[in-house]
């Protein structure tokens, strides 16, 4: 029985469908802007006996009929240009037949141009150079619709700050959104940030809009990981930290390293080292127990004449422990004497460049241990470590060796208590030498600095006369130093602990090795500027190949020059072929690392490196030749 009923209904449906065709009206898009085209499609189940099809269109104020469709199979199609003013539309189709006056009517379809509509010029911003003060990108969102446009924003990943984050825009109005990268970025990587707006625009694919895509990096800066000599050391020790900055296309202006101290406040290390690639190394003296944190590395650099800043936050912690153990260094002309006070036996190491050596110790008293180290005469830090079997920390102290005027100068310092010297205090060719007072109880180790080579004693004269009376000073000079440079002698006066070029005219009597000048009371000396021995063209103070016998994978080439200059390094093999070259700029008085040779690119054997410097890239004013060997 059931089967009979279903069969009857099926047959009836087929007959009705055949006899009375069905009409379906569809309109796309449903939401559109005024003046845009809407496509009407009437689909008939059968076109048999169809005379014509029309669409009747209603809006709030009028009715119109669309004739003459384009017929495609069973589809009757109209393209309708909507009115320039926003409206809500309704439409239905009527199908007329030849054989009967009865028409059939389709469904009622609606569409509207009365909508909120967003218009955004999505933008892609490419910041090659990462900076912690990134430029703000502004993107305008227009409401080109007739209703209020609502929006909210978000970013992917979430580190973009978009302001305002949400809002409403009236018809015909514009809202400007400010987009800023709010992330800690690391050079060497490429970051992609997308800013989106979610709107109530009902049109297809207009709900989620890309406002901006911001690409950051990879940057011309590459910063090596910061290495710390020890993360656990006793009070009084030095903790060495070092890192390298490699860059291209930019000039590093200055670098600042900040340590948070356990008692509060910060310890700052500043480097003014414009260089093509620079290595930064300093020692932090642990003066009190607690936690020290390397909080910030700030790098200012110049890119396309704009100063930009990059901040890194390494957050490396060092624990300073109270201890009864102590280490003191006594730096002598050729040796450093290490003295360790400890009840347990220390093991003392020295790190001199890449070499780490264990020192032999002697025990002059039950709790005193000493060792001696004959140090090499090259610029750079010399770090002594003492480890103990009974406690898990190290004592360390660092001596920095400086090259002054191309020669080794035996200065004994660590970086605790650096004097801050204004950049324009001295002429650019001055050598700044810091003198060690040697008072271990007082941390103010440095009392003076000297932009010149002193060639006389210091004389101090005070006067109670009013008005101030000028004295004639006579100072005996060291003729061995001055020889040939009598006209370069200058008078220097001590002011607030600094030696200032006084400007007084020295009268020189060469035969008597005396300099006379007339000045007010004060402390004076006679000096000669170190730059008098250098010509106007750049000279190489030192050219160092490390190591001379390359057993490892790299050979590094360093030069120190007496003024900023261009350099060219050429490496010849024994067949007189130039097998590697490097050129660039070198900075005055620094141990510029100019090239790191990958020894895997060359066969083993003997090589010669020729370094030349000049005031311009193609000029050579000085050169050095050194041999080195590769034995991988």
């Amino acid at each position: 029985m059931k089967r009979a009923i279903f069969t009857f209904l099926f047959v009836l449906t087929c007959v009705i469908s055949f006899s009375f065709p069905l009409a379906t009206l569809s309109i796309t898009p449903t939401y559109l802007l005024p003046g845009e085209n809407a496509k009407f499609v009437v689909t008939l189940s059968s076109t048999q006996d169809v005379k014509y099809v029309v669409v009747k269109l209603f809006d709030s104020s009028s009715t119109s009929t669309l004739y003459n469709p384009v017929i495609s199979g069973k589809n009757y199609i109209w393209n309708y240009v909507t009115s320039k003013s926003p409206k809500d539309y309704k439409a239905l189709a009527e199908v007329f037949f030849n054989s009967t006056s009865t028409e059939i009517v389709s469904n009622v379809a609606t569409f509207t141009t009365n909508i909120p509509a967003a218009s955004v010029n999505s933008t892609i911003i490419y910041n090659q150079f990462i900076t912690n003060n990134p430029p703000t990108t502004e993107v305008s969102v227009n409401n080109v619709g007739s209703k209020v446009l609502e929006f909210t924003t978000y970013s992917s990943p979430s580190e973009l700050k978009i302001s305002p984050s949400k809002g409403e825009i009236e018809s015909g109005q514009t809202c400007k959104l400010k987009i800023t990268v709010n992330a800690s970025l690391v050079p060497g990587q490429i970051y992609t940030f997308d800013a989106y707006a979610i709107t109530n625009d009902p049109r297809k694919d207009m709900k989620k809009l890309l406002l901006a895509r911001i690409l950051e990096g990879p940057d011309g800066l590459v910063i090596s990981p910061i290495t710390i000599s020890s993360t656990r050391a006793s009070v009084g020790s030095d903790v060495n930290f070092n890192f390298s900055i490699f860059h291209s296309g930019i000039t590093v202006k200055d670098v600042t390293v900040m340590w948070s101290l356990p008692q509060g406040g910060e310890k700052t290390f500043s480097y003014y080292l414009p260089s093509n690639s620079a290595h930064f190394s300093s020692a932090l003296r642990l003066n009190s127990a607690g936690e020290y944190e390397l909080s910030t590395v700030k790098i200012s650099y110049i890119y396309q004449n704009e100063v930009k800043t990059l901040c890194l936050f390494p957050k490396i912690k060092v624990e300073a422990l109270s201890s009864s153990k102590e280490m003191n260094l006594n730096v002598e002309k050729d040796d450093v004497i290490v003295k360790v006070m400890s009840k347990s036996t220390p093991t003392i190491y020295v790190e001199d460049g890449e070499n780490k050596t264990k020192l032999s110790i002697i025990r002059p008293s039950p709790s005193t241990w000493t060792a001696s180290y004959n140090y090499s005469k090259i610029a750079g830090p010399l770090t002594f470590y003492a480890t103990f079997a009974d406690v898990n920390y190290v004592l360390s102290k660092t001596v920095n060796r400086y090259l002054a005027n191309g020669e080794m100068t035996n200065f004994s310092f660590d970086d605790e208590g650096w004097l801050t010297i204004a950049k324009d205090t001295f002429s650019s060719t001055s050598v700044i030498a810091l003198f060690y007072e040697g008072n271990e109880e007082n941390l103010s180790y440095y009392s003076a600095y000297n932009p010149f080579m002193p060639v006389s004693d210091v004389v101090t004269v005070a006067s109670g006369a009013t008005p101030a009376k000028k004295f004639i000073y006579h100072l005996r000079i060291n003729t061995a130093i001055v020889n040939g440079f009598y006209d370069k002698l200058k008078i220097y006066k001590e002011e607030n602990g600094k030696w200032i070029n006084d400007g007084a005219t020295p009268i020189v009597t060469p035969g008597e090795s005396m300099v006379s000048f007339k000045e007010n009371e004060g402390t004076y000396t006679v000096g000669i500027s170190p730059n008098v021995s250098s010509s106007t063209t750049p000279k190489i103070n030192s050219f160092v190949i490390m190591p001379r016998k390359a057993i490892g994978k790299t050979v590094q080439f360093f030069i120190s020059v007496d003024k900023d200059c261009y350099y060219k390094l050429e490496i010849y093999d024994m067949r007189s072929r130039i097998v590697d070259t490097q050129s660039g700029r070198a900075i005055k008085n620094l141990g510029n690392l100019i090239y790191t040779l990958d020894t895997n690119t060359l066969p083993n054997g003997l090589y010669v490196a020729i370094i030349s410097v000049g005031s311009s890239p193609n000029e050579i004013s000085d050169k050095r030749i050194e041999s080195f060997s590769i034995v991988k």
Partner: protein
Amino acid sequence: MKKIVILSFILLIGVFSFSYTLNEFNEPSTFSRAIGGAIYPLYEGAQCITYNPAGMANGKDEAFFSHTEHFLGVIRNEFLSMTFKVKRFSFGASIQYTYPTDEELYNQYKLTFGGAYKFQNYSLGAELNAWNGSDIREGHSLDIGTILKFNNVNFSLTAKNLFASITWNSSPLEVERYSPEFVMGAAYFGSKFTASSYLNLSSKEFGIGTIFPVTDFLQALAGYKMTLSKSFSKELSFGMRISYYDFILDLSYVFKDAFKYGDSISPFYISLTYDFTKGV
């Protein structure tokens, strides 16, 4: 026969596959440096060892010594070689010592033994090289060369440093293998001068030189050499050969990359050849 051809082909490919060419001082001859290194197609006796072994077959017994100061004396090279003829054969041996003078960081010895056979317009030579030194445990290679005379032109073809390998005193010991070098040369013997040239296809070296007899005992020499590796290096060389009885004194000075470095890296060579045959 097929097997031999295939085996040779595989061997040749294998030999070519090493990326390095040997880094050694390979110009001990003053005469050669004066003519831009173009000694390969010439029969110069004892000093031809380390160049083209076929050149040993000049029909004389000779002793040869040279001293070289390179890169303003930073690199020095001493070289001693001798050849003896037995009928159509010439046998030779040499020792070469290379070292830097600015720091005692390295030295290198090279010993060579070889022979050459000359028949009418054709000669064929072969020699074995062995290395030792401060950082070299052992090393060896094979050189094969030929010179063919056609009218007043000599042609040469030399295969140098075949199967070359050096065991270096690194930790662990490292054996470095080197590509062979193929050197072509040609020399023209005119009535008033001799011109010679060579091209080392493997190490990208090219040189050309001329020899002008001034008197019976004096010859003027000039040459030009170019090398290409990372960058071009150019050399202009001058020299003279003084023959006095059984002695030949060669002097040469090479203006190496002179536009850049003046004479500071220019090598100076002096060598003395003693000709036993002539003396007897």
